């Protein structure tokens, strides 16, 4: 459910949307928004404490390749973690029905240890940085 203007979480949701729409796809020269990997309605926000929100993202990868889906999941997480201006907890999922092994992928992209280890892999890190860095 998307909070309306004036409701708590509306600003939070909008921040999240603005942050993810400009993330670039790892393979194509387009943003995730242009490719409809993320949309307005793919961001869900719940207030879980004072000035703290649970942000849930459901994205639809363009092709059913596991590695690409997990890579997009990683980019979403890294950029949101870095840029969200409020205290938050983050959950990222493949939208239902978008992939045959979505349960496995969802587990991987929400596994804090795996995410941390992936970002210490120089090759993966380089790809993620290129996808999330705002052009000057």
């Amino acid at each position: 459910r998307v909070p309306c203007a004036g409701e708590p979480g509306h600003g939070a949701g909008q921040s999240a949307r603005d942050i993810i729409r400009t993330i670039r796809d790892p393979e194509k020269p387009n943003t995730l928004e242009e490719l409809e990997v993320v949309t307005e309605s793919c961001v869900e926000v719940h207030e879980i404490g004072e000035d703290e929100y649970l942000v849930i993202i459901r994205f639809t990868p363009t092709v059913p390749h596991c590695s690409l889906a997990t890579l997009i999941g990683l980019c979403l997480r890294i950029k949101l973690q870095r840029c969200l201006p409020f205290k938050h907890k983050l959950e990222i999922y493949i939208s239902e029905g978008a992939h045959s092994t979505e349960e496995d992928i969802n587990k991987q992209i929400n596994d804090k240890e795996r995410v941390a280890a992936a970002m210490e892999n120089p090759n993966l890190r380089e790809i993620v940085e290129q996808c999330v860095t705002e052009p000057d």
Partner: protein
Amino acid sequence: MKDSLSLLARIPAHPDSRCWFLAWDPSGTLLASCGGDRSIRIWGKEGDDWVCKSVLGEGHQRTIRKVAWSPCGSYLASASFDATTCIWKKSQDEFEVRLSLQSVTWSSPSHILTCPRGSQQNKCCSGLWDSAACSACRTALIAVWCIAGVVCSGADPSWKCICTLSGFHTRTIYDVAWCRLTGALATACGDDAIRIFEEEPLSNPQQPTFALTAHVPRAHSQDVNCVAWNPKEPGLLASCSDDGEMAFWKYQRPEVC
């Protein structure tokens, strides 16, 4: 239940990074912490303050995920995302790397080193420790390498779930720690909270019930990754978090009215 878990100290153990794990040495006087800054820190008490006695910074190229003390307390093992394990030897207040191994962790009850899940080389390393005599540790290091998976001895025990605690935690539980001195069970949760449970005194041991006896909602400002009970001092609990901080707590079972 209020004040049954009270904060003693909060320390920025791994600043600008995350603290993944804590381990008390067998004497309960030293605490090892490790984190995303690729270092291990050894903490000890000086008067009323916890101070950093050593920084073990040269052992790993990536995050250090876990540390464990040998039963005799003279050695520390560290496991890292760089796919190696280091064995550190303690002499006085210094630690030096004695060995660097791939894909190994401690299994403390049987004093055997075993492989973690996902070992790429399908190798298993066994080391036998004699906890009674420190000198034996030096010679007994790394006895056997064997192929194909984890070493098991004896028949697999069968386990039965006798109690489930649900409805208490709102996010992933990253760690549980059972205190050998008091029987209290501590949990580290992704909702930034620490909770303590105790078995109800009159509950059936075959079907025990547990009560929540302490709950600190904002124990840390981010996920709590690890909780560790001091092995000698009842009620002394250490915790650490993604915010890089370590905290010490005093637990006192609340009085029953």
